[in-house]
């Protein structure tokens, strides 16, 4: 069974086909990545180095912008990628999320 899947030739990320353990080395099309953290099924791994502010492509389309430099083989998720549309809500964010607060402040 394959470890990683490329959805579109332009993509900056590969998708984990199964849970991939931290420290393991996985191969895709001749490239080898040693994983610095566990990557669960369906999560994304950077296929190449991505600069802060760069748009990250999946399905050949942008899924948001990198908020920090991302190394090849690093997992891409909410800690290093943000939406260019609407903020991502996490349970830790709490109800009455950030954009509500910033909008209230904007009205002050």
């Amino acid at each position, binding site marked *: 069974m394959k470890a990683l899947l490329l959805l579109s030739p332009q993509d900056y990320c590969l998708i984990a086909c199964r849970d991939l353990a931290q420290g393991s080395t996985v191969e895709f099309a001749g490239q080898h990545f040693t994983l610095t953290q566990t990557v669960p099924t369906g999560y994304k791994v950077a296929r190449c180095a991505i600069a802060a502010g760069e748009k990250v492509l999946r399905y050949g*389309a942008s899924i948001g912008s990198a908020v920090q430099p991302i190394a090849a083989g690093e997992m891409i998720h909410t800690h290093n990628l943000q939406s260019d549309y609407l903020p991502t809500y*996490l349970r830790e964010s709490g109800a009455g999320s950030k954009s*509500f607060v910033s909008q209230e402040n904007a009205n002050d």
Partner: protein
Amino acid sequence: MTELKGFARADGRKGIRNLVAVAYLVECAHHVASEIMLEFRRQSGPEVHLVGFPGCYPNAYADKLMGQLLTHPNVGAVLLVSLGCESFNKRALEQRVAESGRPVHTLTIQQDGGTRASIAAGVDWARQARELLATQARVPMAWSELVVATVCGGSDGSSGITANPAVGRAFDQLVSRGARCIFEETGELVGCEQHMQLRAARPALGEQIVAAVEKAERYYRVLGHGSFAPGNADGGLSTQEEKSLGAYAKSGASAITGLLKPGDQPPSGGLYLLDVVPDGEVRFGFPNISHTAEIVELMSCGAHLTLFTTGRGSVVGSALGPVIKVCANPQTYARLSEDMDVNAGRILQGEATLDEVGQEIFERLVAVANGMPSQSEALGHREFLLGYKSFEPLGPGCLPV
């Protein structure tokens, strides 16, 4: 050639189920309506389903949706349960159902002797309605008479790779046979608007689609919350647009024929987008507080059944129409297999192709349309949810001429 069979209605449409709908017209009548439905739970023969609107204040959207849902082709007879003092125009609704050729009766708890007497009268009426429906047989049904919806709930990083594009393959096959197919949630299509515009059958429709997605983004921005749940992030999705691109795959590759709002009927075969985000200023809260409200809106557009893709593992079904579960994630399937109809996670494991799973979804859909219970149906799921909204009529170019 695969054949469909359904129940003929006086209005010329055909249903894939033949059930009695018991509808409460305010939350105060919910218990009485529920007790009537429970009397027939797990009995063989025509099913009795519970639907309703909880609000006491009037709402044009709720009026329209209750009218469409209680004349839905899967519904054979209707019992309305009113408290008596609520705002809902029950006489207009009763007349609408009667004009559609369905048996209909209204109970008013304040006039009919209270809780116990109303339940007894409702059970009697529903028993007779079931006996009448039990005498009806299925007749041949054309593909052009079938309306199929799709939603996704509990999406994860696998949804956009497996279950959603597999449903897209099934949608392509249905559209090519002349069925009417509906996908939805403009708020879950934020980021896909330019691509959808390219697929629109007419330039004016393309502009309306872009405007609908921009409206959704504005609406969610005011609410401070996109259509993104913490479980999506637990499943590996990072942003709204990543979730959207995966969800969009359910629509397949056909041209987009039209744009609908809740309660609008697709006039001919083809692929339609349902705009579920209210028009005007933000009122009444989130567009849909959960996916059940979306399934209800899809059924108000005539959808006979719903293809529901899930990565995290939704277990819901629906009143009025079957829900078929397509599971995106092989690990979720292993935990919840009894709740799932199709295991699309096999694609991720390299054990099946998108085309094979698309064909499996299509074949399951035909079997369920012809009477086989879906998994959620067999487990007794009959969720229903209808709230307050406001919409303006469809703009020019939304429907095929």
